[in-house]
């Protein structure tokens, strides 16, 4: 176990080195002038002959390895260039948008886990019965409806027809309060900050704006979690200790909830962890449809405007988040489940 964790830890720098090299390789397709936008921290730096000086300064006319080292040096110091989309440095833009995505991920993962596991367990308990078959069709539908269609349908029903769930992150009045100087941003998560500032109605408004994207993400993720939970639950139900529990005369409810489900949850936890990282890693489509100001919608806007600096900055940060997150999930999997001896 320790050996596995240590080995994965040792490989982390190698993966990160490869990740940066790959992104740097992508960057080499850009012209030097386009490339400069990823270095400067203010567009005024690019006026006049300044560009030539900057190309010299950042070594853009020098061999690959020199350029690479200089770029890494910039990135380590948090300099990702100037974001044309948001008109501020990329690092600031990401810091500003990240809490929104984090908030969406936190609120989504709760219904995803509860619903997905419940559906999976139900499906397994009623193995091959009518409910199981219905849930199988439900899972296949979940795989077949793309996020942009589902999101639009939800937007249509709950905003277009019913007018209940508006897009965005906050209503107009509340976002003015949110941006005002008297409002303290403790965490960047609107719901938490609203409560800390004693604004209960703002908290409710923020929750209301979260419902539609959370619904979209939940429906899309349930299918995957349902399948994993179902098959691991079926496996657990076939184990000897379940037969023993039944032989002892325990009620079916206790057998399922106490004996089988606990063991069946382990793989589901891992998948849920990966899903959480996936949502953090940018739910581009969902955020775009609901005008939710997170990293994903920033990525889409920046890409449309050919804002190289922002797109590359987000990619690098999210590569790192994914690598470290996956490592954490893998190690915790091995920690929870002593039966697992990964490689």
């Amino acid at each position: 176990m320790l050996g596995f964790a240590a080995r994965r830890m040792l490989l982390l720098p190698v993966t990160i080195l490869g990740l940066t090299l790959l992104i740097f390789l992508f960057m080499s397709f850009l012209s030097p002038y386009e490339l400069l936008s990823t270095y400067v921290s203010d567009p005024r730096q690019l006026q006049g002959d300044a560009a030539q000086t900057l190309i010299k300064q950042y070594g853009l006319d020098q061999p690959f390895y020199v350029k690479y080292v200089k770029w890494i040096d910039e990135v380590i110091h948090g300099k990702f260039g100037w974001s044309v989309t948001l008109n501020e440095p990329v690092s600031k833009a990401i810091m500003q948008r990240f809490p929104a995505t984090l908030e969406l991920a936190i609120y989504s993962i709760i219904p995803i886990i509860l619903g997905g596991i419940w559906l999976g367990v139900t499906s397994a308990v009623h193995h091959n019965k009518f409910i199981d078959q219905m849930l199988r069709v439900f899972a296949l539908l979940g795989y077949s409806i793309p996020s942009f269609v589902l999101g639009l349908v939800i937007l249509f029903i709950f905003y277009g027809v019913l007018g209940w769930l508006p897009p965005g992150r906050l209503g107009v009045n509340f976002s003015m309060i949110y941006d005002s100087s008297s409002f303290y941003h403790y965490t960047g998560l609107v719901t938490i900050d609203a409560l800390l500032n004693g604004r209960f109605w703002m908290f409710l408004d923020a929750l209301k704006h979260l419902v539609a994207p959370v619904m979209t993400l939940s429906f899309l993720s349930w299918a995957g979690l349902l399948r994993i939970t179902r098959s691991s639950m079926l496996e657990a139900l076939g184990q000897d200790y379940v037969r023993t529990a039944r032989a002892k005369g325990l009620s079916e409810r206790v057998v399922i909830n106490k004996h089988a489900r606990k063991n069946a949850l382990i793989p589901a936890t891992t998948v849920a962890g990966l899903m959480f990282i996936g949502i953090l890693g940018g739910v581009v489509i969902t955020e775009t449809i609901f005008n939710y100001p997170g990293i994903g919608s920033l990525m889409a806007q920046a890409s449309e405007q050919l804002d190289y600096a922002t797109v590359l900055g987000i990619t690098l940060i999210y590569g790192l988040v994914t690598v470290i997150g996956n490592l954490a999930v893998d190690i915790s999997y091995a920690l929870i489940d002593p039966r697992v001896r990964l490689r």
Partner: protein
Amino acid sequence: MRNATSMLGVLLVAFFIVVAICAPFLAPPSYGDPYQIPRSGWSVTPQPPSAQNPFGTTEGQYDIYYGVVWGTRTAFRVGLIVIGFALTIGMTIGTLAAYFGGWIDELLMRITDIFLAFPFLVGVIVLVTILGPGLNHVMLAMIIFYWMTFARLIRGSILQVKENQYVMAAVALGAPGYGIISRHLIPNSIYPIIIQVSMDMATVPLLAAALSFLGLGAPVGYADWGQLVAFSRNWIISSNGGNPFQFWYTIFFPGITIVLYALGWNLLGDTLRDILDPKMLI
């Protein structure tokens, strides 16, 4: 029940294949590039279904029926090209890694890990931004970030098959490496790949459509399902007091097409799993 859903899957896939093949007869192209959707005017407001436009028109008067029919071809083309190339790359890398093992395996799998470090859409978007928008660039970017699934799948599968005695027998008989790979290892480890390909025929065109939805894929007016859905966005949420169902057809026809297409391939994949991989039947 199970047979009924399997049958439905086969029928849906067959239906879309027929639509793709017969596109020139179902929706005869009027001029030049058949993938360019004909316009019946320049008005911004979508028009409801009529004799001339059976599914109605989008904003800018693009014919939805024509877009749906020729979009089927786009979907198949994107699916076949992306999966074809990704499968070739993935199988090569996975097979080499599993067959040789040791440092070659280690090296190839670390490279795979690096590509896996990118969230898929983020990776594709960064490449499309750099290469410039367009369907070909989208396909290229998708290939670059899609082969890893196949590489891992075939590697795991071959590692299992390699332990079988008939492989050892072949080695003992002095069969050459490429013979062992092509006659024993690949044919016996291909089943998970076939299931995966069927599922991916649903996923891959949908992902390409998602990029078109964001405005990064096919150019404006190109027959592509994602773009048709994108056209509907402004019309189905106008909560200005009017009838919200007024423009229902702008989302309904492209949306239902996409879902049925993906459902067909997913049902087919599910059926193949039942047939080819009895272990998964539990």
